[in-house]
């Protein structure tokens, strides 16, 4: 759907040269890097305002219950308390929020649906006072049976998690406790099954992963004299927050002014609101600035997690190793509220076949409503869970056919021109076989590295590390491969655009540029890349990146591997428009002095206007003089379309991205402990705008995939639906001693539809890392291992 005549997926008309220092393709350093490493970076939790109050949220202690009564009297009596608010104190009729479906209560009303749901909020002059006061609020619950899985959710007499649903998915789901269902059907699976010489089936379980960002949810709401509020907040998408916050406060959007504050990681966990509305409500109620900071315990309840999943897969192949068909069913647990569940279902189903040519496909994906913790966006969502299953299947099927596991994948690998199960033709490079070839070709790490140092075993090279559990006894090496496919950008017909305001002017005798977007810098390096783009497109050295806020149009979300593509694209587009204006000014002012003004292709380089032959026509300073050129423009990638609700056919995704991994592990087979020695990755990035950042993203994504392979899991008690390990003591993420060597081979095959030919990169490495590690552990132990993460009990049969 083209909108307002803005350019759609404009290919670059003019190729700016690379003579300007610090442009795209260089590994310029991040402006926030040194500050973060030295501990000086100001995160959202570091903010302070004179006279500010501290907000505290009271959360439900049970997962599913009717609220019989809430008594706030004692809390209100506490000296230092300025306000206690419950559902009854909400100022307007809008009392829910949500990314797509507004099913999440700002504060619980009548019922709580998951452990840790916000019930009441308190503002006090000291955080401890607020905490003490919140503890004095008496909530009487009448507990209800908990719904924790597909069986209990879809039972004929199942309690409906949400009564009276009227969202746009209710019409096509088989049960009101199913958020969304998406089938993807292509070809004739029944007929293809007849042709299959080999069939493998598997049932796979994927655990609940947490984003585990290091900066907890936090922000500061400051009431303004005009009745509005200024909110300083760590988020992934300012304008999406704004759209959800303003109606609850009963304020027009221009009276809720949001500024991005320092974000300590996101990984999808900040797509949903956390404390935003609560802080604003308390600030408007008390007339004082209110700061809320979750501690780590609360953070585990304060954001959505990765959907745990059950995946049922059947693949067939002929004797010569060609895939015949795929039948799959993917059941995602969305927990109590919808969050991003519909989009996760869309990804899991449409990418459920993986990066392979399969002509006959029957996939069904659903997301459940349960009383488990709400699940939503996390790096690679939907595609991550599916990749774990289909890659296990590929190994099993290769073994049955009797082929090398990598060769089997390469034989069936998709390429440019392949038709996806959705009917979409892959219309840019898809070097799946090549990525596999590259990881396989990398040199193997030497055997028994723990003996390299001398006589005594170096336990740091062994499973267990300094815990000193083995000196080599029981240790077996394993090697595994995996490859995955992820979409880039928002899909299924979403109007996925970004806005950039670019200004060019002379400051201190030098032409400089300013870039202003609402892009959330969450650590991905967008601010670095925007400056590089501005230097390349405008030929300047000095670029100022303004703080992200809602005074400029939406940049869309920092998620779905999309920001360099979409906001990078918007910055590029606005720079091009500024450049055109500057050239117009030049032609107007100086055009008569040289014929090249009218005839040549003109570029901005090194602060000058030059012809494509390199002849200098003017200094930018002389063209601009006292004038500033400023343009704010929206930019969108080419449109996508929704998947058909019955067949899943449709041009659903704007771009695909691929990565492959080879994992090498040492497993202590007696104790069931794993040391990942190396996780080699090959990924096509289209064009590396900042090669160092690209490597960093790939290594980070790889490590997050390793986490869910061997340790990371939120454990929910199936009887109570309560979270059992909400702390970094028991929710383990990889330390540097768990992080292997990660050699990275970067391929740059341009996608002609994308700015500079780039490909979104942030998520793909998170997909294949997990199944590669699992495959390596299976290789070492001979065990089937159909669930992730793998725990010592699974490896030792205890």
């Amino acid at each position, binding site marked *: 759907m083209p909108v307002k005549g803005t350019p759609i997926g404009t290919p670059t008309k003019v190729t700016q040269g690379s003579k300007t220092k610090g442009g795209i393709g260089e590994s310029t350093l991040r402006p926030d890097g040194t500050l973060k490493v030295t501990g000086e970076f100001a995160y959202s939790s570091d903010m302070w305002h004179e006279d500010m109050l501290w907000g505290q949220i009271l959360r439900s202690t049970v997962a599913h219950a009717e609220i019989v009564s809430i008594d706030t009297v004692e809390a209100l009596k506490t000296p230092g308390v300025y306000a206690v608010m419950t559902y009854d104190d909400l100022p307007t009729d809008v009392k829910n929020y949500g990314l797509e479906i507004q099913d999440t209560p700002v504060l619980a009303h009548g019922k709580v649906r998951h452990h840790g749901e916000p019930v009441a909020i308190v503002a006090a002059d000291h955080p401890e006072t607020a905490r003490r006061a919140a503890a004095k609020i008496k909530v009487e619950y009448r507990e209800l049976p908990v719904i924790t899985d597909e069986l209990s959710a879809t039972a004929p007499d199942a309690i409906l998690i949400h009564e009276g649903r009227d969202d746009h998915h209710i019409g096509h789901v088989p049960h009101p406790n199913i958020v969304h269902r998406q089938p993807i059907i292509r070809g004739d699976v029944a007929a293809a099954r007849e042709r299959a010489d080999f069939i493998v089936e598997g049932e796979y379980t994927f655990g609940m992963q947490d984003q585990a960002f290091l900066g907890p949810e936090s922000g500061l709401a400051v009431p303004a004299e005009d009745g509005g509020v200024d909110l300083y907040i760590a988020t992934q998408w300012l304008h999406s927050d704004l759209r959800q916050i303003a109606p609850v406060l009963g304020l027009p959007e221009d009276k809720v002014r949001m500024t991005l504050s320092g974000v300590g990681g996101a990984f999808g966990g900040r797509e949903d609101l956390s404390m935003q509305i609560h802080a604003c409500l308390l600030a408007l109620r008390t007339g004082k600035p209110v700061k809320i900071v979750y501690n780590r315990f609360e953070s585990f309840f304060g954001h959505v997690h990765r959907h745990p999943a059950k995946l049922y897969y059947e693949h067939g192949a002929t004797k010569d190793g060609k895939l015949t068909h795929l039948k799959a069913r993917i059941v995602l647990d969305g927990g109590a509220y919808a969050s991003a569940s519909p989009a996760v279902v869309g990804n899991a189903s449409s990418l459920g076949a993986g990066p392979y040519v399969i002509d006959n496909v029957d996939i069904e994906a659903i997301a459940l409503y349960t009383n488990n913790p709400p699940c939503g966006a996390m790096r690679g969502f939907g595609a991550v869970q599916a990749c774990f299953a289909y890659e296990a299947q590929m190994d099993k099927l290769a073994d049955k056919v009797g082929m090398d596991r990598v060769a089997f994948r390469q034989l069936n690998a998709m390429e440019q021109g392949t038709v996806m199960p959705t009917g979409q033709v892959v219309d840019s490079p898809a070097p799946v076989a090549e990525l596999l070839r590259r990881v396989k070709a990398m040199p193997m790490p030497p055997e028994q590295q723990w003996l390299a140092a001398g006589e005594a075993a170096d336990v740091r090279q062994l499973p*267990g590390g300094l815990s000193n559990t083995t000196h080599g006894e029981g240790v077996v090496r394993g090697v595994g491969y995996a490859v995955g496919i992820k979409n880039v950008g928002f899909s299924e017909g979403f109007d996925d655009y970004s806005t950039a305001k670019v200004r060019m002017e002379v400051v201190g005798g030098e032409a400089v540029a300013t870039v202003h977007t609402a892009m959330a810098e969450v650590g991905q390096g967008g601010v670095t890349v925007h400056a590089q783009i501005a230097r390349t497109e405008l030929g300047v050295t000095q670029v100022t990146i303004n703080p992200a806020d809602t005074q400029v149009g939406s940049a869309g979300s920092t998620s779905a591997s999309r920001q360099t593509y979409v906001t990078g694209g918007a910055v590029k587009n606005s720079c091009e428009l500024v450049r055109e204006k500057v050239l117009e000014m030049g032609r107007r002012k100086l055009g008569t002095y040289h014929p090249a003004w009218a005839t040549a292709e003109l570029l901005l380089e090194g602060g000058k206007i030059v012809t494509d032959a390199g002849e200098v026509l003017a200094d930018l300073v002389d063209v601009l003089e006292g004038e500033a050129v400023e343009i704010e423009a929206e930019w969108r990638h080419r449109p996508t379309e929704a998947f058909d609700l019955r067949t899943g056919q449709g041009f659903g995704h704007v771009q695909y991205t691929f990565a492959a991994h080879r994992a090498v592990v040492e497993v202590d087979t007696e104790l*069931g402990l794993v040391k990942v020695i190396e996780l080699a990755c090959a990924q096509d990035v289209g064009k590396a705008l900042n090669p160092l950042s690209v490597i960093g993203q790939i290594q980070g994504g790889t490590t997050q995939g390793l986490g869910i392979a061997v340790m990371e899991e939120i454990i929910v008690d199936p009887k109570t639906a309560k979270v059992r390990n909400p702390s970094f003591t028991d929710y383990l993420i990889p330390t540097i001693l768990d992080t292997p060597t990660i050699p990275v081979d970067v391929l740059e095959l341009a996608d002609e539809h994308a700015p500079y030919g780039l490909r979104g990169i942030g998520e793909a490495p998170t997909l294949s890392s997990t199944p590669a590690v699992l495959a390596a552990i299976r290789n070492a132990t001979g065990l089937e291992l159909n669930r992730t993460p793998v725990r010592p009990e699974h490896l030792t049969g205890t």
Partner: protein
Amino acid sequence: MDFLRPASWEEALAAKAEHPTAVPIAGGTDVMVEINFDHRRPEYLLDLNRIGDLYEWEVGADSVRLGASVPYTRIMENLRGELPGLSLASHTVASPQIRNRGGVGGNLGTASPAGDAHPALLAAGAEVEAESVRGTRLIPIDEFYTGVKRNALAPDELIRAVHIKKADGPQQYSKVGTRNAMVIAVCAFGLALHPATRTVRTGIGSAAPTPVRAKAAEEFLNAALDEGGFWDNGRIITPSVAKQFADLCSAACNPIDDVRGTASYRRHAVGIMARRTLTWTWESYRGTDGRSIEKGSVA
């Protein structure tokens, strides 16, 4: 919450006598976590950081008197020879930052079955120097752990030091966690050979309500080593002896299923660690003891 800051050990004892519910805090690596998580809200915190004596250690003829607040880092750096088991255990404590703050006194005060120092103390043999305004007493480590997170201290007592027997033979320590560093023990095992008394001592962590010794396993092994003349001939311990020792160590466990691991895994893992640490210590004993080692021979 009141924060008591005694300037001397005598003042600390007086404060503890006056406020028996006061929670002592030194490195704060345990107490502060509990407070931050709101798991406890003590009426008084008794800060021991001003008492320099608690950071000192003395190496005596038979034992090391280790001040309650000596950080794990110091133990690793300075007492590897005298206290090899505890040094290995110290290596597994949390992160470098925590090891710079935390000490054995805190582990003993909390008396969590998951405390990393306990199996090493049990295996080496130790006494806890507890003191109150009423006087000083030495509590044998075997009698110190009385229940889940409970110990033998009287309400008015503070831990001043631990007297740990100097190693007279090889010691080993192993700990299972589901991460390669910075992890709370799923279970742990300490083993010390005591050639001077021709005995073996063990310690098991996180596999029973308290840290425990595997006494039946020790007795079995002591007898087997004695009967075969192993201490003198230094022969390789046969696999069947090692296996029986390991099985008896597993049997000494009384673990639970929890979020960190299953009971049956803990039993299994303690057995594996017992067998491996026995092999390592015995090989080391055979390799270093010059008396009458028959290299490579099998008893």
